[in-house]
Protein backbone atom coordinates (compact mmCIF):
# COMPACT_ATOMS: atom_id res chain seq x y z
CA UNK A 1 0.00 0.00 0.00
CA UNK A 2 2.75 2.44 0.84
CA UNK A 3 4.25 1.77 -2.59
CA UNK A 4 1.08 2.72 -4.46
CA UNK A 5 2.34 6.19 -5.55
CA UNK A 6 5.42 4.58 -7.09
CA UNK A 7 3.14 2.27 -9.03
CA UNK A 8 1.12 5.25 -10.27
CA UNK A 9 4.34 6.96 -11.42
CA UNK A 10 5.35 3.83 -13.33
CA UNK A 11 1.87 3.59 -14.88
CA UNK A 12 1.96 7.19 -16.06
CA UNK A 13 5.36 6.57 -17.66
CA UNK A 14 4.25 3.43 -19.44
CA UNK A 15 0.88 4.77 -20.63
CA UNK A 16 2.56 7.96 -21.88
CA UNK A 17 5.13 5.91 -23.76
CA UNK A 18 2.37 3.71 -25.17
CA UNK A 19 0.62 6.82 -26.45
CA UNK A 20 3.79 8.06 -28.11
CA UNK A 21 4.53 4.73 -29.75
CA UNK A 22 1.03 4.25 -31.17
CA UNK A 23 0.37 7.90 -31.99
CA UNK A 24 -0.96 8.81 -35.44
CA UNK A 25 -0.85 12.55 -34.90
CA UNK A 26 2.00 14.76 -33.77
CA UNK A 27 -0.20 16.96 -31.59
CA UNK A 28 -1.47 13.84 -29.84
CA UNK A 29 2.15 12.75 -29.46
CA UNK A 30 3.14 16.01 -27.81
CA UNK A 31 0.29 15.71 -25.29
CA UNK A 32 1.32 12.13 -24.51
CA UNK A 33 4.83 13.42 -23.89
CA UNK A 34 3.40 15.87 -21.35
CA UNK A 35 1.63 12.98 -19.59
CA UNK A 36 4.84 10.95 -19.63
CA UNK A 37 6.68 13.86 -18.08
CA UNK A 38 4.16 14.11 -15.27
CA UNK A 39 5.20 10.64 -14.11
CA UNK A 40 8.42 12.19 -12.82
CA UNK A 41 6.38 14.64 -10.73
CA UNK A 42 4.49 11.83 -9.02
CA UNK A 43 7.74 9.96 -8.35
CA UNK A 44 9.55 12.99 -6.92
CA UNK A 45 6.53 13.99 -4.88
CA UNK A 46 6.24 10.55 -3.27
CA UNK A 47 9.95 10.40 -2.46
CA UNK A 48 9.84 13.70 -0.60
CA UNK A 49 6.54 13.14 1.19
CA UNK A 50 6.34 12.63 4.91
CA UNK A 51 3.20 11.56 6.73
CA UNK A 52 1.99 14.40 8.92
CA UNK A 53 4.56 16.85 7.56
CA UNK A 54 3.57 20.41 6.73
CA UNK A 55 4.42 22.23 3.55
CA UNK A 56 8.00 23.58 3.60
CA UNK A 57 6.75 27.12 4.17
CA UNK A 58 7.44 28.52 7.62
CA UNK A 59 5.31 31.64 7.50
CA UNK A 60 3.36 31.43 10.72
CA UNK A 61 4.71 27.95 11.40
CA UNK A 62 7.55 27.42 13.86
CA UNK A 63 10.85 26.36 12.28
CA UNK A 64 11.50 22.77 13.27
CA UNK A 65 7.96 21.55 12.62
CA UNK A 66 8.25 18.30 10.62
CA UNK A 67 7.87 19.24 6.96
CA UNK A 68 8.10 17.54 3.58
CA UNK A 69 11.22 17.76 1.41
CA UNK A 70 11.57 21.17 -0.31
CA UNK A 71 14.28 20.03 -2.73
CA UNK A 72 12.06 17.77 -4.84
CA UNK A 73 9.37 20.46 -4.88
CA UNK A 74 11.86 22.97 -6.25
CA UNK A 75 12.75 20.46 -8.98
CA UNK A 76 9.12 20.01 -10.00
CA UNK A 77 8.17 23.66 -9.81
CA UNK A 78 10.67 24.84 -12.39
CA UNK A 79 10.09 21.84 -14.58
CA UNK A 80 6.35 22.41 -14.90
CA UNK A 81 6.83 25.92 -16.26
CA UNK A 82 9.72 24.95 -18.50
CA UNK A 83 7.71 21.98 -19.79
CA UNK A 84 4.99 24.32 -21.03
CA UNK A 85 7.44 26.30 -23.15
CA UNK A 86 8.97 23.11 -24.52
CA UNK A 87 5.47 21.93 -25.49
CA UNK A 88 5.00 25.26 -27.26
CA UNK A 89 8.23 24.73 -29.20
CA UNK A 90 7.14 21.21 -30.18
CA UNK A 91 3.73 22.48 -31.31
CA UNK A 92 5.44 25.14 -33.42
CA UNK A 93 7.52 22.38 -34.98
CA UNK A 94 4.38 20.35 -35.64
CA UNK A 95 2.76 23.35 -37.36
CA UNK A 96 5.83 23.84 -39.53
CA UNK A 97 5.82 20.14 -40.36
CA UNK A 98 2.16 20.22 -41.34
CA UNK A 99 2.88 23.09 -43.66
CA UNK A 100 5.77 21.35 -45.38
CA UNK A 101 4.66 17.71 -45.42
CA UNK A 102 0.87 18.19 -45.34
CA UNK A 103 0.48 15.49 -42.75
CA UNK A 104 0.74 15.06 -39.02
CA UNK A 105 0.98 11.30 -39.12
CA UNK A 106 4.48 10.08 -38.20
CA UNK A 107 3.97 6.97 -40.33
CA UNK A 108 3.26 8.95 -43.48
CA UNK A 109 6.52 10.82 -43.28
CA UNK A 110 8.86 9.08 -45.66
CA UNK A 111 12.33 10.33 -44.87
CA UNK A 112 13.38 13.66 -43.46
CA UNK A 113 14.04 15.98 -46.34
CA UNK A 114 16.26 19.02 -46.08
Amino acid at each position, binding site marked *: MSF*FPYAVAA*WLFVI*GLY*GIVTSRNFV*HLVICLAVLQSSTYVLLLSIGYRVGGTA*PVFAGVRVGTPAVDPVVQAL*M*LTDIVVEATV*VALLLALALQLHKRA*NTLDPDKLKALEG
Partner: protein
Amino acid sequence: MLFLQFTILSFVAVTATAVVLTRDPAKQAIGISFYGLVMALMFFIFQAPDVALSQIVIGAVALPLMILLALTKIRRHEEEQRERKEKKAA
Protein backbone atom coordinates in the same frame (compact mmCIF):
# COMPACT_ATOMS: atom_id res chain seq x y z
CA MET B 1 -1.44 6.12 3.76
CA LEU B 2 -4.54 8.18 3.93
CA PHE B 3 -7.72 7.61 1.99
CA LEU B 4 -7.55 11.05 0.40
CA GLN B 5 -4.12 10.48 -1.09
CA PHE B 6 -5.08 7.06 -2.38
CA THR B 7 -8.16 8.51 -4.08
CA ILE B 8 -6.38 11.41 -5.75
CA LEU B 9 -3.58 9.18 -7.04
CA SER B 10 -6.05 6.74 -8.54
CA PHE B 11 -7.82 9.67 -10.11
CA VAL B 12 -4.54 10.91 -11.62
CA ALA B 13 -3.85 7.48 -13.08
CA VAL B 14 -7.35 7.17 -14.59
CA THR B 15 -7.35 10.69 -16.05
CA ALA B 16 -3.90 10.21 -17.60
CA THR B 17 -5.04 6.98 -19.22
CA ALA B 18 -8.12 8.70 -20.60
CA VAL B 19 -6.04 11.56 -22.01
CA VAL B 20 -3.63 9.21 -23.76
CA LEU B 21 -6.34 6.94 -25.18
CA THR B 22 -8.34 9.88 -26.58
CA ARG B 23 -7.22 10.01 -30.18
CA ASP B 24 -8.75 13.32 -31.18
CA PRO B 25 -6.31 16.10 -30.16
CA ALA B 26 -9.10 18.67 -29.79
CA LYS B 27 -10.81 16.54 -27.17
CA GLN B 28 -7.42 15.82 -25.69
CA ALA B 29 -6.80 19.53 -25.10
CA ILE B 30 -9.84 19.62 -22.82
CA GLY B 31 -8.69 16.39 -21.21
CA ILE B 32 -5.21 17.71 -20.48
CA SER B 33 -6.73 20.81 -18.90
CA PHE B 34 -8.76 18.61 -16.56
CA TYR B 35 -5.71 16.43 -15.93
CA GLY B 36 -3.76 19.56 -14.98
CA LEU B 37 -6.36 20.46 -12.39
CA VAL B 38 -6.32 16.95 -10.91
CA MET B 39 -2.52 17.12 -10.75
CA ALA B 40 -2.72 20.49 -9.00
CA LEU B 41 -5.09 19.00 -6.44
CA MET B 42 -2.65 16.14 -5.92
CA PHE B 43 0.23 18.55 -5.31
CA PHE B 44 -1.94 20.40 -2.85
CA ILE B 45 -2.86 17.25 -0.95
CA PHE B 46 0.80 16.18 -0.85
CA GLN B 47 1.80 19.45 0.82
CA ALA B 48 3.31 21.14 -2.19
CA PRO B 49 1.45 24.47 -2.55
CA ASP B 50 4.24 26.06 -4.60
CA VAL B 51 4.03 23.36 -7.22
CA ALA B 52 0.24 23.31 -7.17
CA LEU B 53 0.18 27.01 -7.97
CA SER B 54 2.37 26.67 -11.04
CA GLN B 55 0.48 23.57 -12.19
CA ILE B 56 -2.90 25.33 -11.97
CA VAL B 57 -1.86 28.22 -14.20
CA ILE B 58 0.01 26.08 -16.70
CA GLY B 59 -2.49 23.23 -16.78
CA ALA B 60 -5.63 25.32 -16.90
CA VAL B 61 -4.56 28.16 -19.19
CA ALA B 62 -1.27 27.90 -21.03
CA LEU B 63 -1.20 24.30 -22.28
CA PRO B 64 -4.81 23.88 -23.52
CA LEU B 65 -4.78 27.32 -25.09
CA MET B 66 -1.62 26.71 -27.08
CA ILE B 67 -2.82 23.28 -28.17
CA LEU B 68 -6.21 24.58 -29.30
CA LEU B 69 -4.64 27.47 -31.20
CA ALA B 70 -2.24 25.10 -32.94
CA LEU B 71 -5.16 22.84 -33.89
CA THR B 72 -7.19 25.74 -35.30
CA LYS B 73 -4.23 26.66 -37.44
CA ILE B 74 -3.79 23.10 -38.67
CA ARG B 75 -7.46 22.75 -39.54
CA ARG B 76 -7.40 26.00 -41.47
CA HIS B 77 -4.36 24.87 -43.38
CA GLU B 78 -6.08 21.63 -44.30
CA GLU B 79 -9.12 23.49 -45.60
CA GLU B 80 -6.90 25.72 -47.68
CA GLN B 81 -5.14 22.73 -49.15
CA ARG B 82 -8.47 21.20 -50.11
CA GLU B 83 -9.63 24.41 -51.73
CA ARG B 84 -6.46 24.59 -53.76
CA LYS B 85 -6.92 21.02 -54.96
CA GLU B 86 -10.51 21.70 -55.98
CA LYS B 87 -9.39 24.75 -57.93
CA LYS B 88 -6.83 22.70 -59.77
CA ALA B 89 -9.40 20.03 -60.59
CA ALA B 90 -11.84 22.59 -61.90
